[in-house]
């Protein structure tokens, strides 16, 4: 491996880490989600800085070509991250549903409270700006 490829590997890993950390600092990324990318960045940095470590680990788990280990770990991380995103999405959908249901019930309650002064079901709709001021 020539020096240029060596430096390129390290630079790429450092770049990933910088992006993740700066997102974290600006609170654009929550720790819960950042952990995966930090882990991936650190692994890439280790593999880039010490290529021999990659060969040793590949030997240890019985993979002939060290690069296949890189592919395997990368795909595994991406797979787990997208699975986590799907789970998160499900949680958010459940929360959104809760909120929508609560909004519907609260709106009904507000209408009931307002309706007491308006008289039984006269079908008067409040205007969008809430300016339904009736003779109170």
């Amino acid at each position, binding site marked *: 491996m020539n020096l240029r490829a060596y430096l390129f590997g390290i630079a790429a890993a450092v770049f990933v880490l910088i992006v993740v950390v700066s997102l974290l600092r600006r609170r654009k990324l929550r720790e819960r989600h950042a952990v995966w990318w930090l882990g991936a960045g650190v692994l890439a940095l280790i593999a880039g800085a010490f290529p021999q470590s990659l060969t040793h680990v590949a030997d240890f788990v019985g993979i002939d070509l060290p690069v296949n280990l890189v592919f395997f770990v990368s795909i595994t991380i991406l797979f787990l991250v997208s699975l986590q995103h799907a789970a998160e999405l499900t949680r958010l959908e459940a929360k959104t549903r809760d909120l*929508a*249901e609560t909004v*519907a*019930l609260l709106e009904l309650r507000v209408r009931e409270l307002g309706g007491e002064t308006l008289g039984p079901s006269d*079908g008067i*709709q409040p205007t969008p700006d809430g300016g339904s001021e009736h003779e109170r």
Partner: protein
Amino acid sequence: MGTALGQTLIVMPAYNESQSVGRVVSETCATLSGITVLVVDDGSTDGTGDAARAAGALVATLPFNLGVGGAMRVGFRYAAEHGYGAVVQIDADGQHDPRTVAALLDQLDNYDIVIGARFAGEGAYVMRGPRRWASKVLAWVISRTAHNRLSDTTSGFRASGPRAIALFERDYPAEYLGDTIESLVLACRAGLTVTQVPTAMRDRSDGEPSQSPVRAAVYLARATLALLFAYVHPKAVAPRTSEVST
């Protein structure tokens, strides 16, 4: 004897049903005196809510479409908050006859959930092909879970008693077919009892359900999947009856 009509809440999930909802609400109120009808407007864009309100129903408006499961949970939550003893789900398209509500309520003395079954003898409702097989398989599997013979598990005409309200208020599936298949399995596995009474269905006000073989096959596949998932979920805890009576 059955649950009194004053203790009963009719919940009508409605999505773009402005053509029929007013008439169905008026008919329901006229047939069942003293009943409260709650129309859950499931994100309609055609003025369904206004039509229902004009006909004398309470209307809860969802800000966007959640599907029948989400709409029904609004109904169960409302019923639980206001201490109703029974919830009856009726479709807003007019296919369910409000005169049969009394028959459903009668059975609530002995069961937690009563289904208004479409093909249990009454009426002229026929299904054909894969859709029919699907409903047979579903009925067989769910009957075994319910320890009671049920022939129509996908009916949208149902009465729920206090224990079912307490369970569904917390936990009512919003997925495809969740409001029918999964909710029944959920209730049975939580120890609630289910029965059915035969009911005649009337023609929908507009349109028949598609009978194309491809759509029927897709339905069969999705129903099977929904059924499998229903059994994979962990068991829900049955609500204690003591905390129900409010």
